[in-house]
């Protein structure tokens, strides 16, 4: 029997709804959603092509009759072509900064905002937030859903918010210390950065008042969780969401931290093979697909997230009945198949983090010189890790080699390369070069 990392109450009785009852609720709400979506020309056409109607949706399984929606669809309906309510009923608009070109907007009615803050409150409470806590929010505020999403969720719990937003990390450390924040909310990578800056200023783990962290907005690993917890002396919890579905609050961890409970009374989740779009069995990694069940302003049908994760329907000792999704292990657009094995760049990152002495700057090059795939992982040396010994370099090389094999199950050639030699496009590192796709071998 696993032990919880802390004791916490359940915020909303809906989280423990028995599965058959919830499935009935989902079926009812799914039908309503299809009815609402039919008011949108885009969905009306898509439903028509799929031969699906609201009346035909009688059970949860009927979701399979519905058409998929993609990020491209949202882009084509720029700016607010997918609204299912009159403009006057909108209460707020958020957006996601498209890495390519225009943002995509999402809209909320007053009731959508109520729903959203309630969902954020659910995972915050599950992860130990209490009304007497003070929470430091270092998420960006703005079109991005992270800042405002967490902000109103924290207020919903009754805790106090310090809306610090992003930037000026030394000042953030000062605010955390001086105001006595017990809880930190930001992306996991920013939490690590805060820890580094705090350490540089002479703080030791546990010196800051922080006790809990709620992190999301980007994929991360268990290794990173351990690093953050050690560096800040806190318990860290993972949450998941995306603006197209609602924002943070789609799922979140409970005290047992064996996956994130999906808020199934509000979202229907499917896990599909990204190529065939067929459902994959529970426990297998596939692409997550969400259908909103209560969203008014912008319902979304079978939204393809591109996020790869596995679902777990086994009962959780916490009492919550929502299916648990694993950490996001990668994006379906960057999954590599090497000699028949699925490999994600995040796995290489995990392996490198296990090896002290390697910065997570790397490039995976895959080619097929003959009939077999060959993969090379180039890893940048950090000057601080270089000694004057061949033996030390050889050991570093061999450890990386072993860890990559252990994590991915695939043998890859490891090359240590000089710092800053791997290409970085617009600040964002390029992780994969697949010569099989580009035609070069």
């Amino acid at each position, binding site marked *: 029997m696993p032990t919880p990392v802390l004791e916490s109450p359940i915020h909303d009785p809906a989280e423990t709804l028995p599965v058959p009852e919830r499935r009935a609720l989902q079926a009812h709400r799914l039908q309503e959603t299809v009815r609402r979506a039919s008011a949108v020309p885009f969905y009306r056409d898509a439903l028509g092509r799929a031969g699906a109607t609201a009346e035909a949706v009688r059970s949860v399984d009927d979701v399979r009759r519905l058409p998929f929606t993609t990020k491209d669809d949202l882009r084509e309906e720029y700016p607010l072509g997918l609204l299912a309510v009159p403009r006057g009923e909108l209460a707020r608009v958020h957006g996601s900064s498209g890495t390519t070109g225009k943002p995509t907007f999402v809209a909320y009615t007053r009731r959508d905002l109520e729903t959203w803050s309630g969902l954020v409150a659910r995972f915050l409470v599950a992860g130990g937030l209490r009304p007497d806590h003070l929470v430091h929010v270092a998420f960006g505020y703005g079109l991005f859903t992270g800042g405002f999403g967490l902000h109103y969720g924290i207020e919903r719990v009754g805790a106090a918010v310090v809306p610090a937003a992003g930037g000026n990390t030394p000042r953030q450390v000062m605010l955390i210390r001086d105001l006595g924040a017990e809880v930190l909310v930001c992306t996991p990578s920013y939490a690590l950065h805060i820890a580094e800056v705090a350490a540089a200023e002479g703080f030791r783990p546990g010196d800051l008042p922080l006790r809990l962290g709620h992190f999301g907005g980007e994929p991360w690993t268990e290794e990173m969780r351990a690093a953050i917890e050690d560096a800040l002396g806190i318990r860290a919890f993972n949450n998941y969401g995306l603006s197209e579905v609602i924002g943070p609050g789609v799922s979140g961890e409970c005290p047992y931290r064996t996956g994130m409970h999906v808020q199934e009374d509000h979202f229907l989740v499917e896990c599909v093979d990204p190529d065939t779009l067929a459902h994959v069995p529970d426990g297998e990694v596939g692409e997550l697909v969400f259908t909103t069940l209560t969203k008014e302003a912008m319902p979304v049908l079978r939204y393809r997230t591109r996020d790869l994760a596995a679902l777990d329907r086994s009962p959780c000792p916490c009492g919550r009945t929502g299916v648990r999704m694993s950490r996001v292990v990668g994006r379906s657009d960057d999954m590599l198949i090497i000699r028949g094995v699925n490999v994600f760049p995040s796995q290489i990152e995990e392996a490198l983090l296990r090896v002290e002495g390697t910065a997570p700057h790397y490039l995976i090059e895959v080619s097929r010189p003959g009939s077999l795939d060959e993969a090379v992982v180039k890893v940048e040396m950090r000057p601080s890790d270089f000694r004057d010994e061949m033996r030390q370099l050889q050991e570093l090389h061999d450890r990386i080699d072993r860890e990559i094999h252990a994590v991915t199950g695939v043998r890859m050639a490891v090359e240590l390369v000089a*710092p800053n030699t791997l290409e970085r496009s617009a600040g964002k590192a390029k992780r994969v070069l697949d010569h099989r796709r580009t035609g070069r071998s």
Partner: protein
Amino acid sequence: MKIRQLSLFLENRPGQLRFPCKVLGDAGIDIVTMSLADTAQFGILRLVVKEWERAKAVLDAAGVVVNVTEVLAVDVPDRPGGLAAVLDAFEQAGVGVEYMYASAARERGLHATLLFRLEDPDRAAKLLEAAGVKLVGPDELFARS
């Protein structure tokens, strides 16, 4: 008596050796001795230069991974058995050798100068001098080259 040595990380592919040499040449820095150790995957280029601090600064600025270590320069009699006698003195003194290489500074018929990376250079220097091994300081080494 210790000599500062620069160790450079090299990827094992064409052009890797040329680049740091060009950086030093452009800065007008003379290489006194050098040695290259490599495997199929990577190499370490070890250099002794007259102005090691300036050399490190220009290499750092050029993005080369550089590590500074201390080595001892030892005069070894230029005759058969000369090196064996010095190594014998190391063994008697209990000084472990991590690696060694020959420098270009050699006075034919008199002695060759070898560079030794030893486990504890300070302790080794004392023991070796006590054992009568001739250590060459930086000034003398640079004057010969």
